[in-house]
């Protein structure tokens, strides 16, 4: 019983520590307290990258081994990843309004992130559009591999193109982080906390997916569908076409 909840307990503890550090870190010299949104916006974006990387791993794992559990991992991770992508966009928007002066602008980072969100929503839609588990796993795996191309593009968009969004502070291609040490510590702990929340969510989602697959396997596909016995009403005087 304790082992089953270890992930959850670690996640909750890290979130609590992260919150205390985020509130205790010094405010930014220019942005003031609004900058504290960084401690949730950046981890959310990081988890989105991580989630889609795990979907890539799960997809490749399925293509190589044809074991269902890889497919379930890919699906669960993509689902959580979409939530965190949406969260990163929403939190970024909340940060953008007071600092940039706009909720949204059509720069490369924002547009590529929106595309990332939409393409993985498409991935989830694809999973619901195919009934046969084998076909669904194959098509999803291919999309799970191809769609990951976007992640490095999103991350490097601020380096490759001119944007309103700032270039990376921590994962910079060339230099050390350009951030106060206390802020960096708070950020890294929050990244760890979000990662733990992600792991706990994916673990639970994958367990549900396994139960769904088992229930599915017990379903008789040739049984009559609900509603089959209902006969469509005919209007009086209607002529059969």
């Amino acid at each position, binding site marked *: 019983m304790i082992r089953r909840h270890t992930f959850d307990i670690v996640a909750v503890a890290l979130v609590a520590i992260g919150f205390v550090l985020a509130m205790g870190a010094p*405010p930014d010299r220019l942005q003031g307290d609004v900058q504290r949104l960084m401690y949730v916006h950046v981890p959310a974006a990081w988890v989105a990258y991580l989630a889609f990387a795990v979907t890539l791993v799960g997809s490749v794992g399925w293509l190589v081994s044809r074991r269902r559990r890889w497919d379930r991992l890919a699906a669960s991770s993509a689902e959580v990843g979409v939530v965190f992508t949406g969260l990163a966009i929403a939190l970024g928007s909340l940060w953008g309004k007071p*600092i940039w*002066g706009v909720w949204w602008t059509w*720069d490369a980072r924002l547009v590529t992130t929106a595309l990332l969100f939409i393409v993985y929503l498409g991935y989830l839609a694809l999973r619901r559009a195919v009934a046969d588990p084998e076909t669904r796993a194959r098509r999803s795996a291919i999309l799970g591999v191809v769609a990951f191309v976007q992640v490095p593009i999103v991350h490097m968009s601020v380096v490759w193109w*001119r944007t309103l969004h700032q270039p990376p502070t921590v994962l910079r291609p060339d230099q050390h982080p350009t951030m*106060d*040490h206390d*802020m960096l510590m708070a950020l890294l702990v929050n990244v760890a906390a979000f990662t733990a929340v992600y792991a706990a969510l994916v673990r639970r989602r994958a367990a549900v997916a396994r139960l769904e697959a088992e229930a599915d396997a017990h379903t008789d596909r040739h049984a009559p569908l609900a509603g089959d016995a209902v006969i469509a009403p005919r209007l009086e005087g209607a002529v059969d076409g």
Partner: protein
Amino acid sequence: MIPAVGVAAVLFVVLAFGDLRGNLVYYLTTSEAVDRQGQFGDQRRFRLAGHVVEDSVRPTAAGAAFSMTDGVTTIEVVHTGAPPQLFRSGIDVVLEGSWDEGRFASDTMMIKHDEQYCAPEREERHCPSRTPAADAAPADGASR
């Protein structure tokens, strides 16, 4: 699989080499804006980014007037509307507007904050003051 790769290849070529008539460039630097002044005239709207020159900000009845530079070329800007809270001299801004008799008439201003984060009392230790030359953004696409 093959159609997907084909679509991806076409997209890549269009994005990398097509330039879509310059529409993919999010903003122009002040030097580029001056270069294209003749071509744009006073009608065409575009985004312009640069560094607000120290002590150049003057409040006006309709908004603010200031000078903006990329370290090489300086442009006089007349902005209409209330600037965002963070607006001050020495910060990077992105403006939307058009040329107006040699000055840039802007009606939308966005603050382009940089990637430096530091505490107020520790400014000297972690945040070396930036020079306008450090703002020079990479040219779109190819370089870097």
